[in-house]
């Protein structure tokens, strides 16, 4: 530590003694000292790509503030190359995740809820800071998010009964339709609900076996980046969920135009951006979820977000006797 830094730390220590909550100070310059005399340990928020926590390829960060404009942390400002890397990771993970049994996916999603419950306090704090809510209101949001994971965990092995089934046909055939995941879903997470909103758009996409590249709420990405730590420790295979923080207007276009992305959720895009992205997405016929599908994140969702990312496979199988011997096969 240089002499100057030392002086700065001492000064910060003094400040901390007189004013324990030295909010708004640029903690990047010198470590703050907490009320108990410890140096505060500040968290470096990182992206979540392929099960790893890289910094942005571009090396950029941006300042994240709470609702009153006080500095909270620096978040990585992801570039289009980070988006590209995330798509590669998502594609790599798709085979394993879509091939896992629905029952297994349900267990994994439930595990996410378990892990989240264990870190409830952290998320309550982050959501309260990010959205300017009281702790009680923030706790409601976090609880609702945990419950939403559980809800979608239950749906993994039931959605096929709703979206598929046996079709009556005029011939000696079984005709069965089964829903299959569409592939990689790019998600622009809602800007108005940094955590519950994110979970509400993320969980349905992965519940049905898709893999996701999600762009967190631009002004409040910290709960999302912390969610990555939960996902990394809850049996979700690396690459199934990839979380980027940055500008929707910068990351949206390369994702919408990407030929290896199969669906895009434009919830977090404003009207002008959504229009532009929908045009770009038409090039390889992506499934598009337009903004405004959900207006209130607190209300229990319907199935539309799960059904949006499913393709239907229909199989014809002959029934009845096929030969002189009377065999059914």
């Amino acid at each position, binding site marked *: 530590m240089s002499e100057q830094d030392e002086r700065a730390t001492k000064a910060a220590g003094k400040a901390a003694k007189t004013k324990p909550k030295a909010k708004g100070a640029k903690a990047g310059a010198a470590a703050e000292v907490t009320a108990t005399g410890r140096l505060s340990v500040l968290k470096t928020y990182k992206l979540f790509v392929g099960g790893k926590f890289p910094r942005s390829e571009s090396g950029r960060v941006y300042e994240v503030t709470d609702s009153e404009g006080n500095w909270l942390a620096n978040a990585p400002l992801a570039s289009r190359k980070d988006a*590209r890397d995330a*798509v590669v990771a998502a*594609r790599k993970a798709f085979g394993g995740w879509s091939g896992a049994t629905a029952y297994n996916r349900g267990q994994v999603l439930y595990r996410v809820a378990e892990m989240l419950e264990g870190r409830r306090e952290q998320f309550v704090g982050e959501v309260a800071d990010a959205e300017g809510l009281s702790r009680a209101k923030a706790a409601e949001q976090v609880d609702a998010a945990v419950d939403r994971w559980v809800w979608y965990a239950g749906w993994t092995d039931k959605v096929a009964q709703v979206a598929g089934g046996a079709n009556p046909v005029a011939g000696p055939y079984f005709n069965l339709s089964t829903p299959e995941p569409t592939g990689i879903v790019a998600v622009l997470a809602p800007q108005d609900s940094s955590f519950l909103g994110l979970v509400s758009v993320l969980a349905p996409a992965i519940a049905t076996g898709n893999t996701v590249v999600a762009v967190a709420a631009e002004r409040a990405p910290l709960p999302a980046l912390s969610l990555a730590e939960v996902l990394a420790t809850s049996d979700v295979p690396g690459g199934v969920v990839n979380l980027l923080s940055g500008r929707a207007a910068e990351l949206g276009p*390369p994702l919408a*135009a*990407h*030929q*290896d*992305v199969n669906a895009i959720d434009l919830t977090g895009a404003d009207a002008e951006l959504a229009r532009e992205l929908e045009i770009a997405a038409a*090039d390889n016929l992506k499934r598009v979820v337009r903004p405004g599908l959900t207006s209130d994140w607190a209300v229990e969702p319907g199935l539309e977000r799960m059904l949006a990312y499913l393709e239907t496979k229909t199989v014809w199988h002959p029934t009845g006797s096929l030969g002189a011997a009377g065999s059914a096969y």
Partner: protein
Amino acid sequence: MPSVTSTPTAGTAALADATASDAALRRFLHGLPGVDAVGLEARAAMLGTRSIKTTAKAYAIDLAISMIDLTTLEGADTAGKVRSLSAKGRRPDPTDPETPKVAAICVYPDMVATAKEALAGSGVKVASVATAFPAGRAALPVKLADTRDAVAAGADEIDMVIDRGAFLSGRYLQVFEEIRAVKEACAREDGSAARLKVIFETGELSTYDNIRRACWLAMLAGADFIKTSTGKVGVNATPPNTLLLMEAARDFHAATGTRIGVKPAGGIRTTKDAVKYLVMVNETLGEDWLSNEWFRFGASSLLNDLLMQRQKLRTGRYSGPDYVTVD
């Protein structure tokens, strides 16, 4: 930038003396300057940090495609697979006829005739591995017969493996004579000859010093190309060991005036990797080597990544594996 090696000052005559006897060859090979491993790795890493963008990148991608020895070397190879790979080599991206052809299709000797037929008139060469590839554990007459077969079937290039057992035991002259013999077997009746690439399997040679010795041994014996590896062992082409091959080729050219090609093979899968190797060629061997006459990539999956990057540059949209063939 000081060169990592000091250029051997031996002239052509001195080099001829070096191969006069087993003892002389050993003296020569062990007299080569030792490799500064830290310096070599640092130099290779440094050359990998260049940022190649836009038009330079487009040039590098097309150059890399034209340098690929598109390879299928599996027990499960069928004539159909070789034909489809040949079709891909002739026209790597059917959506864009501007895409250059690959340099060669690399197959096992028994598939040479099939590949030759599939590539007729395209200008894409047929390379064949030979000499009991990949282990090289067979008697010399068998290896020579293997080579002659491939040449007779129409192979334009022969990729031979050296006898690593003999090399590591220090029987350098035996390895030398073997390369000589295979080189002779590459001759065709009309007086021309298939070009000979000598594979060292650098992953099995243990030390950088050994790799440098193997390079000189092969170049003295008449190799047209020196090649890192078979792609069949754990460690294949790495930037440091390929750089070492390039430096040997550069030094040999300085000493004798003879130009030797270099071919890294195995483990090069991304455009980024390929561009790093091209930077290395340019900085080590110079622009003269930047053609598929003197530099090749032994690869299979690299081509798809190059094509995807090419599509990205052309259309501005990131491409995906759905838009290239499954090999």
